[in-house]
């Protein structure tokens, strides 16, 4: 039992790890064909996952409506929106879904009128929250906080055209802030994360990290 539950998964993790890594560096037609084959299968698996995801989402909202949970009315809109997009997408302006998407079809109009507008609106709201958060966050409470505050003020003025009109120093200093302290901090974080990823991958491949197997041993 231990062999099936532990040894085989560890051997598979090692073999597929080495295979996945090595295939990127083997310059042979076999390697590229295999990569294309894998890409195809990933798409197939992705399609299956999409069906599962849709089922899971529908189940969640059905339960919400059936139990009359808080905000259940919104779940009705999920089904309305879903049905509307599926039906119009499949119908595709009379050309059906296996043909190219028909321009100015109902599906096209729904996408423009609902999805594009709603998506752009949601992102635009960020502007308001960022303004409010900036005012609450940038407080000169300590030396570090004051430095952050100054950097933020210089960047906010220096990154817009009016900054240069006020003083040539604003764009120059803001560019320096982006090129030097920003890059230094980001690079340190990226190196840390990347080294951590490599280390974790090696630990998984060599069976030192086994938490993905579940259980204690």
């Amino acid at each position, binding site marked *: 039992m231990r062999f099936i539950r532990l040894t085989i998964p560890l051997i598979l993790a090692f073999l597929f790890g080495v295979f996945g890594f090595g295939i*990127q560096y083997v310059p042979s037609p076999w390697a*590229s064909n295999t*990569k*294309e084959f*894998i*890409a*195809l299968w*990933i*798409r197939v698996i*992705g*399609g299956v996952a999409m069906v599962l995801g849709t089922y899971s989402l529908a189940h969640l909202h059905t339960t919400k409506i059936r139990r009359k949970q808080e905000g259940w009315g919104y779940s009705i809109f999920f089904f309305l929106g879903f049905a509307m997009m599926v039906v119009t997408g499949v119908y595709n302006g009379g050309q059906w879904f296996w*043909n*190219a*998407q028909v321009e100015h079809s109902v599906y*096209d109009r729904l*996408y423009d009128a609902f*999805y*594009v*507008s*709603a*998506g*752009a609106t*949601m*992102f*635009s709201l960020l*502007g*308001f929250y960022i*303004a*409010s958060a*900036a*005012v*609450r966050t*940038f*407080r*000169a409470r300590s030396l570090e906080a004051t430095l952050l*505050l100054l950097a*933020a*003020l210089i960047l*906010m*003025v220096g*990154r*817009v*055209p*009016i*900054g*240069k*009109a006020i003083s040539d120093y604003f*764009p120059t200093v803001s*560019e320096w802030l*982006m*090129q030097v302290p*920003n*890059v230094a901090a*980001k*690079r340190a974080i*990226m190196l840390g994360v990347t080294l951590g990823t490599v280390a974790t991958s090696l630990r998984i491949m060599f069976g030192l990290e086994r938490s993905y197997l579940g259980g204690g041993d």
Partner: protein
Amino acid sequence: MRVPWSDPRLIFPLVAGAIALGLVVHVKPPITPQEPVVAVYNYIQQLPKGSVVLLAVDFDPQALAELRPIAEAVLRHCLRQELHVVGMTFGVLGAPLGYDIFRKVTSEPEFRGKQVGVDYVYLGFKPGDMTQIITNMGENLLTAFPQDYQNRPTATMPLFQQVKSLKDVKYIIDLAAGGTPDTWIPFGSDKYKIPLAVGCTAVMGPDLYVRLNAHQINGLIAGLRGAADYETLLGTPGLGIGGMFAQSLIHLLIVAFVIASNVAFLWRGRRRKQRG
């Protein structure tokens, strides 16, 4: 009276008012293009006529306000330079946006003579793992995209007699609202030695300066300001330049609020100290 500087009930209406004012009043602030944007412009400018540029429209409607002006400006520049443009996307929800951008720009009077499949093509969305698709494109572009967005076979297009795989592409421009540049860099640019530029949302800009600094990308067009810079270089004002006065006003408003709230904060601290 204590002024609630950080109260959203005060900030939100003022932000909305400043944006509305900035968009209604047509003031063009003087724009000096930033160096990373100039780098992209100069690189496209020096490409020989007929070179193939890959424009990856990797964004969805959430980033439309910032990335559409960049996409339009870059596409205009490429077509004006008589480069051949291959468009595609890794974002399923952004696929129609890419098509719309290509349709709009190519229908402008200046580009009426440009033909789909000859001067440009929009391939649309390809499902699957991005790494694998880029690798697939590096081996054979036609198997990766047997049809374009309008289901026309790519194999018969004159453009694809010239470009068989990513190796035939001279420049990649990724217009990203997410992590796509991190995959384009190792699997598209580094692997096939194709220069890469990135157009991105303003919040992604600081992250990508690391890539710029390491020469993993040769240029960066960040946010609406980046679009305005590009439009200035191109001499074709668009949504980027149009939004600059509003953006300047908003930034100044936030700066004023931050300063005012800090003055109030320090003043209160001082009063508290005095009271003991």
